[in-house]
């Protein structure tokens, strides 16, 4: 049974999750006075109320966008972590447009999201260009850019967009025309969810049914592919960076217009970095990323509910996340059982 690649992958996933949960439980035993209640809240509370389950989907939207943006880069072997800074800065772009008066409530969010996406794409082109042209290490440049974009964004918000009615880092309230409508009553799930589904379908099509997607996948398997195929690696890297930045930009904009009334991130929101986890868990596959985002959102929502009524802080979820990600992205985890099953199968077929 383990010889089947798909079944083996599923078993591997299951084993990683189980291992992570066991470890989490052990930690809970050590730090909590009521480990059993905390554990069951963490695992099952999102299912107990419709509104809680809504929270899972609400959180899944930005995590998916960040994951899709990062997965596209990882898939092309570009270890760029710039989605974090793009999320922050495009949030400010969003705030700048969403606070303007505009008569049309259909066009206002669309324009805001598109401009934010284009801004994200252009920002991503900076490390993208240096990577494509000079092989500049994109991991370092993108991380430095996160800090630079944060400082720059903070400056813009403080000196140009600062709210007139509240103090602290905040923009004015977004215009009601810019807000995304709620599509499922009883929750806060907004129309950004529909945009996400469309993006996943488009990305899937692009990756598996177009020439660009083929180049991305082949370059991911072998970094020299682009060079030897005579394909222009320069433009490939630029295109991938732009699409990734665009996804980050619209993800940030959608999150703000769907879930917030004003821009008020005083620190980097951490959503972009989580995108790296989604990409790894989802094996850089668009559908995989969304499933991973759902799973992580489920766990985070559960932990959040748990943290509110127990003595355990929400950050405990980092243990689950790290353990699952490390085991899922390891090629040799449980592989000997897979190989043993393969050999056995081969033997019986020959006989």
């Amino acid at each position, binding site marked *: 049974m383990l010889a089947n690649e798909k079944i083996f992958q599923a078993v591997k996933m299951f084993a990683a999750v189980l291992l992570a949960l066991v470890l989490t439980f052990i930690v809970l035993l050590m730090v909590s006075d009521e480990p059993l209640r905390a554990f069951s809240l963490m695992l099952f509370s999102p299912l107990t109320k419709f509104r809680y389950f809504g929270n899972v989907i609400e959180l899944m939207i930005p995590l998916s966008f960040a994951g899709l943006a990062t997965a596209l880069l990882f898939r092309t072997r570009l270890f760029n972590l710039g989605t974090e800074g793009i999320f922050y800065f495009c949030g400010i772009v969003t705030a700048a447009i969403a606070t303007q008066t505009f008569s049309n409530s259909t066009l206002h969010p669309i324009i805001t999201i598109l401009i934010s996406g284009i801004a994200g794409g252009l920002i991503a082109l900076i490390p993208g260009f240096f990577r494509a042209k000079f092989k500049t290490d994109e991991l370092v440049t993108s991380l*430095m850019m996160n800090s630079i974009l944060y400082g720059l964004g903070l*400056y813009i918000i403080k000196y140009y967009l600062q709210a007139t009615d509240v103090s602290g880092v905040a923009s004015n309230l977004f215009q009601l025309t810019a807000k995304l409508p709620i599509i499922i009553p009883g929750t806060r799930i907004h129309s950004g969810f529909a945009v996400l589904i469309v993006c996943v379908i488009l990305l899937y099509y692009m990756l598996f049914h177009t020439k660009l997607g083929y180049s991305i996948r082949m370059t991911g398997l072998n970094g020299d592919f682009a060079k030897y195929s005579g394909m222009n690696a320069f433009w490939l890297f630029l295109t991938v960076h732009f699409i990734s930045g665009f996804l980050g930009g619209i993800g940030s904009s959608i999150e703000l217009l769907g879930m917030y009334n004003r821009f008020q991130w005083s620190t980097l929101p951490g959503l972009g970095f989580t995108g790296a986890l989604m990409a*790894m868990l989802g094996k850089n596959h668009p559908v995989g990323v969304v499933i991973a985002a759902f799973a992580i959102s489920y766990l985070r929502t559960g932990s959040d509910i748990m943290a509110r009524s127990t003595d355990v*802080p929400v950050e405990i979820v980092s*243990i689950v*996340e790290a353990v699952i990600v490390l085991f899922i992205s390891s*090629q040799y985890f449980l592989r000997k059982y897979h190989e043993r099953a393969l050999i056995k199968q081969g033997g019986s077929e020959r006989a």
Partner: protein
Amino acid sequence: MPDLFEIIFKPEFGFTVIRVVVPILFAALGAYIASSAGIGNIAMEGTMLMAAFVGTICSAIFQNPWIGLMCAVLSGVLMSLILTYFTLVLKTNNILGGIALNLFASSFTVFLLFIVTGSKGTSATLGAKTLPKIDIPILKDIPVLGTIFSGHNVLVYIMFAAVILVYFLMYQTPLGLRIKAVGKDEHAAESVGININRIKTIALVLSGVLASLGGVYMSMGYLSFFSKNMTNGRGFIGLAAAAMGHGNIWMVTITSFLFGAFDALANALALYALPSEIIITIPYVAVFGAIVIYSIFEWRNRRARGEE
């Protein structure tokens, strides 16, 4: 606009450069050893953060800074062993594994901080110990040099010693030669009987130890408590310095000091009326610019050799 020369050509500025370069240089030395063995240790940042946390907490628990330091180093070794296990045994991509460990460290330290102190911001209430400052006899009385080099935290002097020690390790010992051999061509190294995985493990553990020293400096020297994400990208700046040093320890050290100087400059300028949001980006802009310039040089070299 403040006079830049006035800021830079003061002995106090030299003192500040040394003060801020410590975490960067430790990280750079660690990254240098790991990359010499052919593995990028991206988990540097997370290892530092973990050590910063463990060091200050243990020093509070045992009321002894040296025990805190030891625990911090142990945590660095542990982080490296986790990375080693996943990259060498389970064949996780080392960059992905490093990213996962960094994310883990940044929230796990907050988790533990809350468990220990009940706060998610800093450990300032704990009354942790810091490592002592040292006045160097004779040197401290020499006018300019004394101001720059004396009166630092003990980890500053350990850092200078570490540069020398790493130099001897990498250039004068068989182990250093083996580390470099594995990094250059592991199949060739294997063919002469070098145990690749053992060498890589040693290199990663050494880099974890160095990272943890840089991390513990943050919470037990630079500041006297742990605060959330206090390493703030210094591990990555160290990685950049190591990459630009191009396998030469003196270049790694000089580059680290260059980045430290920009960090110190940002600190000095923050006292003036410039918008602090822009000032805090100076060190990152410097690293960004430096690594771009470096890669353009590399690119021109490759082109001159006809490789591109």
